[in-house]
């Protein structure tokens, strides 16, 4: 009798937990369906090509070209990677190969704290310090591709550093010891043994950082200037897909609102591609082990 009861309870618990687990999946499904249902009709009505390659975004005049925002998102993301990845990688290499374990125990958590700072704070710092600095030293309005790239570059550091550190530490000790034993210097060891061995993990860290950069909204709205033209230089203002949605959401109605959902669809697709890439590279890493 008792045993029977226990079993029944076990089953019941399992069912309830299953329900909760599936609710997360259901939420994702609902969001996806909703975005696509709201966003795709207008794309087909006006032509997908016009959305992807149109240069004019005048939603109140029924002109919905998203190319400036697509290039904007890609530009600031690329800029963030150019600035953030070398820094992050250098930091990860130093902490795993050249520093003591004790130093790493102090510095790594501190870097991870960076990830906990709300993006609006980054944006505020950008507006107050970085934007005037760029305006006074390099010219232009200050609100620019460069400002957004620098701030996003800092924002992706924790992701790049901590995942790179983990993948460098996951390389078997024998590799490093063997290389050193054969007379290679530390740097030669890093360059020719450690980095190639940890390659897929490092690539995954870069792709995850990229996902963070392309999805960031608040900080970018505050410092990128949000102009709807394709920037001619890195000192010109730029608008990203995410800021396009957040900026105009408040007032949009009718087709304008649908066009913002279409912006969301394109963003969704770009991020799905990035996530899939990340999954493939980390799956390859897992198989290697």
């Amino acid at each position, binding site marked *: 009798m008792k045993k029977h009861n226990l079993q029944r309870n076990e089953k019941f*618990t399992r069912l309830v937990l299953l329900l909760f687990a599936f609710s997360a999946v259901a939420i994702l499904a609902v969001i996806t369906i909703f975005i696509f249902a709201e966003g795709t009709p207008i794309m087909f009505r006006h032509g997908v090509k016009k959305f992807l390659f149109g240069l004019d975004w005048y939603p109140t005049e029924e002109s919905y070209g998203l190319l400036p925002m697509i290039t904007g998102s890609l530009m600031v993301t690329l800029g963030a990677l150019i600035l953030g990845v070398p820094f992050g990688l250098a930091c990860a290499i130093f902490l795993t190969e050249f520093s003591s374990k004790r130093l790493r125990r102090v510095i790594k958590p501190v870097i991870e704290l960076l990830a906990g700072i709300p993006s609006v704070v980054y944006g505020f710092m950008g507006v107050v310090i970085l934007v005037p600095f760029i305006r006074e030293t390099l010219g232009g309005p200050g609100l620019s591709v460069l400002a957004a790239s620098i701030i996003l570059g800092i924002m992706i550091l924790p992701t790049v550093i901590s995942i790179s550190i983990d993948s460098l530490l996951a390389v078997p000790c024998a590799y490093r010891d063997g290389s050193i034993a054969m007379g290679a210097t530390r740097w030669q060891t890093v360059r020719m043994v450690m980095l190639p061995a940890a390659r897929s993990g490092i690539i995954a860290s870069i792709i995850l950082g990229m996902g963070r950069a392309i999805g960031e909204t608040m900080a970018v709205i505050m410092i990128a200037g949000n102009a709807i*033209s394709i920037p001619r230089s890195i000192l010109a203002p730029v*608008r990203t897909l995410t800021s396009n949605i957040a900026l105009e959401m408040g007032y949009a109605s009718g087709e304008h609102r649908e066009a913002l959902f279409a912006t969301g669809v394109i963003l969704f697709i770009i991020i799905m591609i990035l996530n899939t890439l990340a999954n493939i590279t980390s799956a390859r890493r897992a198989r290697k082990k």
Partner: protein
Amino acid sequence: MAKMICLPRFAIQALSWFLLTLAVLSFAACLKRGAQKELIVAGSTSIQPFADRWAEIYMTKYPGRIVNVQGGGSSSGIQAARSGAADIGTSSRELKPEEKDLTEIVVARDGLAVIVHPSNPVSDLTISQVRQIFAGEQRSWKDFGGRNRAITVVTREEGSGTRGAFQELVMGKVRITKGAIVEDSNGTVREIVAGDPDSIGYISLGLVNSAVKALNLDGVMPTDANILENRYRLVRPFLFVTKGPAGSEAKEFIDFVLSREGQDLIRKEGLIPVQ
């Protein structure tokens, strides 16, 4: 026995939380249905802060009345008045011809100020010069007697009532340049202009402060007196819109807004009264 209870404790806890939330929600829903009908005022986000002030004073003056002020933008406010989702829709732009079937009441006027950095030597422009600057045709302050520096144009986002009014009053059919910096509130436009010596923007006149300089347009200073005498041209109405004549509750609120007390309230907040 104890063991038996132990196993699904987490599940039971989670379930009871879920049920509790449901119970609270349905209770709240019941309460709301039981309460007396509230007056819904929805629309322009430019009017929202002022409507909030009116509602606040109105509700303390007449206890038991409930006025619920919502944003959403001028267009959706007009839409809400038509569909009956709001008793009063608010709009910070003139009604379009196809919207004229609704009843409109001007409750206040708001000036639009064209602002620059206080250090900018230019303090006078004609409206057509402003149009050229915002269209991106004139790119240097030098052409207007200022420094030899590129002009940074700052505008509001597409769909904003302030942008709509500026487009209508200054730009006409001409488009604002694509290279313009876009900010999503009066406050951030003012912040950018206050920080950048070469920038130009436009905000609600009531929000101009010492951090920025409001330009004279066509030689007319943007002051309340000049607006009242119709000399300053960049003025937009703040409208209350109802479908047909206002119902009794809506009418009482509108009467309060138009009363001396209601109008004094917005004068203090920087708007121009209509009475």
